[in-house]
């Protein structure tokens, strides 16, 4: 395939789509499927048949449309009307009323001028809910692989890295390491064999950003990885994806096959000298495999236990070779950066945190779902304007970002801008994008206990502080929650947390105490209310009872 062929393919697809008067997009992501969206698909098709519209209207399953709490969701294109809680009757009405007669079905329509939608800025999710994830043509029709084409035909690897560096994008997996810098390091390491690895082992409980991208727009990841491969000089990429995401795996497999078939992956991509292949590796349920050295071991078919760094994977990674590791959301940003230029990306967000971030908004909040917002947006805007605040009759207490590695942000810091540095300053982290809202009914000691329970279960067991320390931190939290702990126990808890944080081998252990430390920082009184004083010597003059044995 040549660049011209790619353009032609895009035009063909655009022409094909133009033949339809409407495109009915039903959400086929896990959330909506579980409330019956597949049944709704059948209903829509049946209704269309009844009205003889089957040839004029296309019914397409898409990735996540965001408003997961109100599924099943159906979108009507080209108008962009979004319907929520579509049941069988509503499906029939959408066809009968909206498509045939014109007026939209008011009972189910979603107000997309609501801040939940209006305040979003979509780069990563731009195609989610807009295209059929199972057809490469649809991705190509919306400028897909255009960036890759430009890269392999017009740009030198150094220029690609420079463009990524200038965009200011930082790793979306949590730590926020500048992506361009990382690419530059791997490029400089001399080696014939290098690898690109995409971390799609989204393990943060309560986060499903990456899954939505993988399910809704898999080609975007392939394109980002191929660009990375070209830039650093790699010919092989791996996507490490969780086994818990069967649909994402299926779509990725399909996407890889399609891309290979049309020559966008494989040898001599777009008739250039660049060869790049991508293979899938399926995780098997280990949160620690999100840590890069553990992930590499897991790809190598071994126990996912981290090893000390340095050497960093950029120097010695997969099978000892220089390896570039980025997460899904990072790769998803690459094609738009190349396509639109680094200065376009740079202008989004704030200077030190550019671009957007996807969050999975959940917990005690009215509008749950997936949102993509510009970096630097105040937390208050996310929670109250977009999320609609906490349920009736309760008050906002805290928002947890960064999952088990992160921290909670209390009401007094609601105005914190959501960017890497500001979140660190209030004791949390950007993390991969989980955002759980807690209200006045949430007990913070319990919350800390929940996260610690998670961390102790997910500890790989290699280093002592994490393997044993997390068990004891959890035990102390249980003791405190049960009202059996003394002030001495609280002191020990804090010391243990600091020790585990500073001495653990990998990021899991080093960040495991964060939920405890951050709840202690902002909600210490909730701990102290549960404590008693340790018993001490009582001189006989003071005690009334003769305590004898």
């Amino acid at each position, binding site marked *: 395939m040549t660049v011209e062929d790619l353009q032609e393919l895009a035009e063909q697809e655009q022409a094909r789509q133009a033949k339809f008067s409407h495109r009915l997009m039903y959400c086929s992501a896990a959330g909506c499927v579980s409330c019956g969206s597949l049944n709704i698909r059948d209903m829509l098709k049946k209704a269309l048949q009844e009205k003889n519209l089957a040839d004029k209207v296309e019914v397409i399953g898409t990735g996540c449309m965001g408003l997961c709490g109100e599924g099943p969701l159906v979108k009507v294109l080209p108008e962009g009307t979004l319907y929520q809680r579509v049941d069988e009757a509503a499906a029939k009405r959408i066809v009968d009323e909206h498509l045939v007669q014109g007026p939209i079905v008011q009972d189910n329509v979603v107000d997309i001028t609501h801040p939940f939608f209006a305040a979003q800025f979509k780069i990563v999710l731009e195609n989610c809910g807009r295209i059929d994830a199972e057809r490469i043509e649809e991705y190509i029709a919306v400028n897909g692989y255009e960036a890759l084409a430009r890269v392999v035909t017009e740009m030198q690897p150094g220029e690609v890295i420079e463009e990524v560096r200038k965009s200011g994008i930082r790793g979306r997996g949590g730590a926020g390491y500048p992506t361009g810098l990382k690419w530059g390091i791997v490029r400089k390491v001399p080696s014939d064999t290098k690898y690109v690895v995409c971390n799609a082992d989204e393990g943060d409980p309560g986060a499903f950003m990456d899954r939505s991208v993988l399910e809704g727009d898999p080609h975007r990841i392939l394109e980002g990885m191929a660009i990375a491969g070209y830039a650093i000089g790699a010919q092989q990429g791996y996507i490490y994806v969780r086994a818990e995401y069967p649909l994402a795996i299926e779509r990725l497999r399909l996407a890889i096959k399609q891309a290979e078939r049309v020559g966008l992956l494989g040898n001599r991509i777009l008739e250039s000298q660049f060869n790049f292949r991508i293979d899938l590796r399926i995780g098997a349920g280990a949160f620690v495999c999100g840590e890069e050295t553990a992930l590499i071991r897991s790809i190598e078919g071994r126990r996912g236990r981290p090893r000390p760094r340095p050497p960093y994977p950029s120097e010695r990674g997969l099978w000892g070779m220089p390896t570039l590791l980025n997460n899904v959301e990072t790769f998803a940003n690459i094609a738009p950066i190349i396509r639109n230029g680094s200065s376009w990306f740079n202008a989004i967000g704030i200077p030190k945190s550019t671009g957007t971030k996807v969050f999975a908004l959940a917990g005690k909040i009215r509008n749950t779902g997936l949102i993509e917002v510009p970096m630097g947006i105040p937390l208050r805007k996310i929670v109250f304007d977009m999320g609609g605040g906490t349920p009736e009759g309760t008050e906002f207490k805290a928002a947890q970002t960064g999952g088990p590695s992160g921290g909670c942000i209390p009401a007094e810091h609601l105005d914190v801008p959501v960017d890497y540095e500001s979140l660190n300053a209030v004791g949390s982290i950007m993390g991969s994008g989980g955002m759980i809202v807690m209200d006045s009914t949430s007990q913070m000691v319990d919350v800390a206990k929940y996260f610690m329970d998670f961390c102790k279960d997910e500890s790989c067991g290699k280093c002592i502080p994490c393997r044993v320390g997390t068990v004891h931190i959890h035990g102390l939290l249980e003791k405190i929650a049960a009202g059996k702990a003394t002030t*001495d126990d609280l002191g020990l808890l804090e010391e243990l947390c600091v020790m585990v944080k500073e001495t653990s081998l990998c990021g899991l252990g080093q960040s495991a105490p964060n939920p405890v430390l951050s709840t202690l920082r902002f909600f210490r009184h909730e701990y102290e209310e549960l404590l008693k004083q*340790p*018993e*001490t*010597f*009582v*001189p*006989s003059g003071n*005690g009334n009872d*003769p*305590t*004898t*044995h």
Partner: protein
Amino acid sequence: MKLKVATVWLGGCSGCHMSLLDLDERLIDLADRITLVYSPIADVKDFPRDVDVTLVEGAVANVEHEEFAHLIRRNSRFVVSFGDCAVTGNVTAMRNGLDTEEVLKRSYVELADLTPRIPRDYPTIAELMPQARPLHEFITVDAFIHGCPPTADQIWTAVSELLEGKKPALSHVFLRYG
């Protein structure tokens, strides 16, 4: 004024007390300087109040031990874990992986020479706790004398320092488990 000293025997083999007796002629010296207000080797029924120093041998292994530990804490200025069982649980804690019922059966039935029977119907016999645990997990402990058993020299150093009104720093010199 003589220091009021108590020694207590919880879940242990009494080896630590034997080691205490190994102070030999130093015991005479000691007798001039302390009053032994409570001990398994003294006929005192009730644990007194305002004890200056209490040495506790053995792990906390039954409900009586636990209750007693709290009493010791309230009534003693200075509590010392005396020997490895009090410090770590040690041999007393080796049964912790087993069900208490199995432990009782083994001790009172399988190994009995006469009248194999679990002595359950005596209210004076305290109920075994699921696990024998070190003293400091129940009460605040002020000092530790290690060893199984601690040597007479260790004990002598510790007691001497206590008599001088110092918190014994012996552990650094005499730190030895087992």
